[in-house]
């Protein structure tokens, strides 16, 4: 007898058997369904977190590098970064003049401070002194007015370009910010531009910011600043080469002795994403592990019910064997039955899991997204669980002695 006949006849018998034990089938299905739903909801949330993080990273500006004294994220040996020399205006000018792979080079310094206008005040606003190139290096957009210009910096003009959150807070109800005189750290500045919204990065707003001309900022807060030198690389496949070039250039300009470690860091958006993955990877591992355990429990439920089913149908198995069913035919029949229950459970679990992920994205700020492939994964994985846990009961059925099986009451 061909495998095709085994499959066709096996499916028919499986459907019939499932239909005649509705409650049992439903309960088994629920077991697998819960497993798949858990797994899918977790995957959905995970994928949602990842994609929202990717979106946030895009706001940092592609192909952009930031040369700074310290790394953005310090894990472990923080003391290695003590005593590093500042990055100065002279270093910035050297990079700007000599770096061949750099499209644009900016300098920036920043600190938190108060901003107020009339009776409205904001504290802990990110005040940044920037050169005009920061527009492209930082991937900023200007929605009204203009950005900081070379003339502003040269003349230390008291002008500012404000972030979207600052604009909303100080100029509500459509009030006109351009030309208004706001106070930054107690000194009057004229608003000449409003920045486009960038969104949040790692739960911090990038729009609660005020940009000043670099030298206006350093005059406002006179101290020995260490600059962030922002670099936009000409093309994305030159980023690694540009990095090497910057290291060589800065070591030469800063006269770092040969053999000594770099006493500066080149910060990249990818560093954030790899750190993010390190932090969340373990969490996801645990969550997905829980989903798998739930599926395992469902699978054991399937195995249990299949063993009961084999016990109940011993005589049927004897009859089928007497009439010419081979062992393979019997195995196929029972494995199909287990796989079918699981697949149905998987389908139901998929719906519930997707619903759950959707619910999470509605009631929490997490945007849970599920890729289309995940749905097939859910159903397919459930079917696989049924297959694996159905094999042993099926093999027991097939290995029954026909004579004994026929005698079963």
């Amino acid at each position, binding site marked *: 007898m061909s495998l095709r006949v085994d499959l066709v006849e096996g499916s028919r018998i499986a459907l019939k058997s499932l239909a005649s034990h509705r409650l049992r089938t439903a309960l088994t299905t629920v077991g697998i369904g819960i497993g798949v739903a858990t797994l899918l909801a977790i995957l959905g949330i995970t994928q949602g977190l990842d994609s929202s993080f990717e979106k946030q990273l895009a706001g940092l500006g592609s192909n952009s590098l930031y040369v700074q004294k310290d790394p953005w994220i310090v894990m472990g040996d923080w003391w290695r970064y003590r005593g590093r020399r500042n990055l100065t205006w002279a270093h910035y000018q050297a990079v700007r003049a000599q770096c061949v792979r750099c499209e644009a080079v900016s300098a920036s310094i920043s600190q938190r401070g108060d901003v107020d206008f009339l009776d409205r005040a904001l504290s802990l606003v990110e005040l940044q002194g920037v050169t005009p190139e920061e527009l492209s290096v930082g991937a900023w957009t200007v929605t009204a007015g203009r950005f900081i210009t070379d003339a502003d910096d040269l003349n230390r003009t008291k002008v500012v370009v404000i972030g979207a959150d600052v604009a909303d807070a100080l100029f509500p109800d459509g009030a006109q910010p351009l030309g208004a005189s706001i106070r930054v750290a107690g000194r009057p500045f004229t608003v000449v531009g409003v920045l486009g919204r960038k969104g949040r990065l790692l739960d911090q707003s990038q729009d609660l910011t005020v940009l000043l001309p670099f030298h206006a900022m350093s005059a406002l807060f006179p101290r020995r600043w260490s600059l962030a030198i922002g670099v936009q690389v000409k093309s994305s496949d030159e980023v690694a080469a540009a990095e090497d070039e910057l290291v060589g250039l800065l070591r030469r300009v800063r006269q770092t002795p040969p053999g000594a470690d770099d006493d500066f860091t080149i910060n990249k958006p990818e560093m954030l994403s790899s750190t993010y993955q390190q932090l969340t990877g373990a969490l996801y591992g645990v969550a997905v592990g829980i989903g798998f355990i739930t599926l395992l429990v469902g699978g054991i439920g399937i195995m249990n019910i299949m063993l009961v089913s084999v016990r109940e149908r011993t005589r049927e198995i004897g*009859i*089928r*064997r*007497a009439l*010419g*069913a*081979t*062992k*393979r035919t019997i195995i196929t029949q029972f494995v199909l039955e287990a796989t079918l229950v699981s697949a149905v459970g998987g389908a139901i679990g998929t719906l519930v899991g997707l619903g759950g992920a959707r619910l999470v994205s509605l009631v929490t700020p997490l945007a849970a997204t599920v890729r289309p492939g995940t749905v097939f994964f859910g159903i397919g994985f459930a079917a696989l669980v049924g297959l694996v846990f159905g094999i042993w009961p099926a093999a027991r059925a097939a290995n029954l002695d026909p*004579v004994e099986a026929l005698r079963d009451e």
Partner: protein
Amino acid sequence: MLIELKDIRREYTVGGEVVRALDGVSIGIAKGEWVAIIGQSGSGKSTLMNVIGCLDTPTSGSYRLNGKDVARMDDDELAGIRNREIGFIFQNFQLLPRETSLANVELPLVYRGVSARERRARAIDALKKVRLENRMTHKPTELSGGQRQRVAIARALAGEPSLLLADEPTGNLDSATGEEIVRLFEELHQAGHTLVLVTHEPRLAARCPRAIRLSDGQVVGDGPGAEVAWQGVARP
């Protein structure tokens, strides 16, 4: 010869003790014969039936069925032999309770890989032979004992096997219904089918042209049914 059994032995180990269910049985049965195998319980007749029906394999000895040596076949080959060569008729009918008469009769043809259309036609034919064409869509629970056994006979006939093997076919039936089934066997015999009937009832064995008596796993009588059936038994 359709069936050639030579020096068949079948031993079981029960609780460390060897039980000889069949102890050197040699029988030949020709095509078209109607043979009863009679014996008390424990005589080995059920074991013999299982060996003849290829549900069990002998410990030693040779068994040729329709020219094929089946004593050394593997499980899959035996399943094929059961499917094509043998039509089983059991004491308790052994019908699938959730399937209709028609589906039950079709079952051996399903395992032979016969197309659905042909399967149906042949099953209907077989049900006509046992005069149950008006009960095709009934399930076994909706049928009387005699009707159930006729469905089982139709199932045995559907595959057109070379041998019909019946195990106490009237055992679960009242005497009137039993008589009906025996008449059906007579018809099948006249139509040329080979019938082997395992029973402990002399009355039934006496109706067969030939009977073989088994005692303690050995053949102790082989001759016309009317004679062998009552051998060593007090006639009522």
